[in-house]
């Protein structure tokens, strides 16, 4: 039987996978994709919890509203983020994380 636990584990694995990508990848765009994966993993957890937290016998739609906001915010973040990445590419001709290491110490 598929329990909430299954969903949570899938969500956790997806989250971890995203984290691994964020740490391991050098292409900022791909890093950004991995970040989106992490957000989605969080969404999965939220939806999972909302389905099994019944309010009046229905899924808890406050949580689903948050998912809605998260998706929107993520979209806006992607837009701004990609703009910054484009600006970076214009100035460095690269989207490698190693191109931004001047500030340190």
């Amino acid at each position, binding site marked *: 039987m598929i329990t909430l636990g299954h969903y949570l584990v899938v969500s956790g694995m997806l989250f971890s996978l995203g*984290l691994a990508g964020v*740490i391991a990848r050098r292409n900022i765009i791909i*890093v950004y994709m991995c970040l989106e994966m992490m957000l989605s993993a969080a969404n999965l957890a939220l939806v999972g919890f909302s389905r099994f937290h019944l309010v009046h016998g229905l899924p808890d739609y406050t949580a689903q509203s948050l998912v809605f906001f998260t998706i929107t915010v993520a979209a806006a973040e992607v837009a701004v983020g990609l703009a910054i990445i484009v600006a970076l590419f214009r100035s460095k001709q690269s989207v490698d994380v190693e191109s931004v*290491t001047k500030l*340190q110490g």
Partner: protein
Amino acid sequence: MNASIILLLPFFSALVILLGHRQLKGASVLISVGSSIISFIACLVLLAAADDENNNKLLLPFLDVGHFHANIDVLIDKQSRGMMFIVSFIGMLVHLFSLGYMKDDDAKPRFFGSLSLFMFSMTGIVLAGNLIMMFIFWELVGLSSYLLIGHWYQKASAAEACKKAFLTNRIGDFGFMIGILLLFGANGGSVNLDDLATAFKSGPLAPDAPGYSAGFTTAAALCIFLGAMGKSAQFPLHVWLPDAMEGPTPVSALIHAATMVAAGVYMLVRVSFLIEASPLAAEIIAGIGCFTALMAALMATQQNDIKRVLAYSTLSQLGYMVMAVGAVAMAAQHGHEAHGPNPGHPAMFHLYTHAFFKAMLFLGSGAVIYACHHEQDIWKMGGLRKHMPVTFWTFAIGTLALMGLPYVTSGFYSKEGILGAAYDSGCSILFHAGTLTAVLTSFYMMRLLIVAFFGKPRTESAHHATEVPMIMLLPLVLLAIFSIFSAWDGFATPLQALKPAHERPHTTVLVASILAFLIGTIGAIYLYRGKDKDPVNIKLFANKFYFDEMYAVIVRVCQDRLAWIVTALERVFVDGLIVRLPTAIIARLGAATRLLQGGHLQGYTFLLGGGVIGVVYLVVFVLPRLGH
């Protein structure tokens, strides 16, 4: 009232002169001499008013904390009266003598100012009614001695000598202070001489008191004695006194012969109750005095500097006095109670006779030196008898007094008193060594007299020597009179009180004294008559048993090397452990934490992710188990 004049007049004189001598110019000399004369007169008045009853009174407040009082209070009794007379009388004479002797010195005001300071401090010691006050003035005489020895500070030897004198005395004071503290503690907070005497007789420090400890009494006595050792230049703290002769001769006469160096003896007599309470301490004191007397006498036989001969002689005589203190205490322990109420003390007796003739000898030597244009080597003098007749005769009288010309001079009586005490002490070594010292004394003094005053002038300066002015002769003559008569009954009554009760001297003692005088005199005449250079040459004596060299090594090895080592250790350990090590650790830590901030995004994301995992591990898996 009188006591305060005697005490404070020189103080203000010193203060005014030392602080304002540039404005005062010549007047400073007058102030100083004037104050010394007035003090002497006041002292005579004090002596006249003989109220021994009301003797311990407060002069000035100093320290008053709760139950504890350490004030300037004076104890006027027989001993302080006599001592006061000596101090103010000789002090006055030395002031007068200095008027002539220091006539051409640029720094005359400083000299007289310091002299006044000395008079103040010495008066303080004499009058002191408690040990703290005595310590205060004890130190202050040290200061004035320092200033006066270093009067010609441009000379390296004088500069070193004054420093040496002060430091050596400091070592003595170290012990003195410990002694005072011990007595203070044991006597429940009072260091009044009266209280202490009572305490030792019937109070908490008496042998039958509960908790009495013989070791403690001995320790206290020896600590106090250490103070006397410094001031009275007893072995092994004697090294400063010969060097102190770097000071002007009147100073040597007053401070380093007659009064200050005798202060140690005076103080020991003041606390004789303490010494009598401890047999061991009495023996040690007598032993050290005896050793000093003999050793210094041996050294004196081979000195060529007129002042140094006198200086070693002073050392030797001081040793005598100290030995007397010890011997009397030993005798008292053996049941030889002195007779009569409040009897005199042989040490005090010798102290005052010695003060007169030794001051006289120093002043005489000062006159000689003055006449010979600051020549001090006796082998470069000779034949002065004819050029300076008055000086010669007074000097001769002084010499004979010191040698102890039987039945005539005061020195004979006092020395006999000491030998008697040594004889009574039950320790024959003391007596034998004392007699030997007496022989040596006669020997070296005669040697000095012969070489300096007899024969032919051996140098130009001796040839051209002329008699010194009147102002310098007057003190010599006065002191010469005292040198002869001061031990005679009926002369200068306040002093007579210091004499031990008159007792038929033991025949042995009498014979020994006379024989010692004769042997020494004859030996010296035999050896030195008509000689142009020293026929005897004993390196060990001439070089003062190599004490100075030994001390130099000790200072260099023990103190300077130790200081060097400790400084190095301090740098390495304290600086290293307390400063450098923590600094280095923090710096390393800081540098390490900086490495976290490498500027690489991947590193940051790793840390962030790791942080999350770490926090989760901590919060979810560790903290709940700790059972907060």
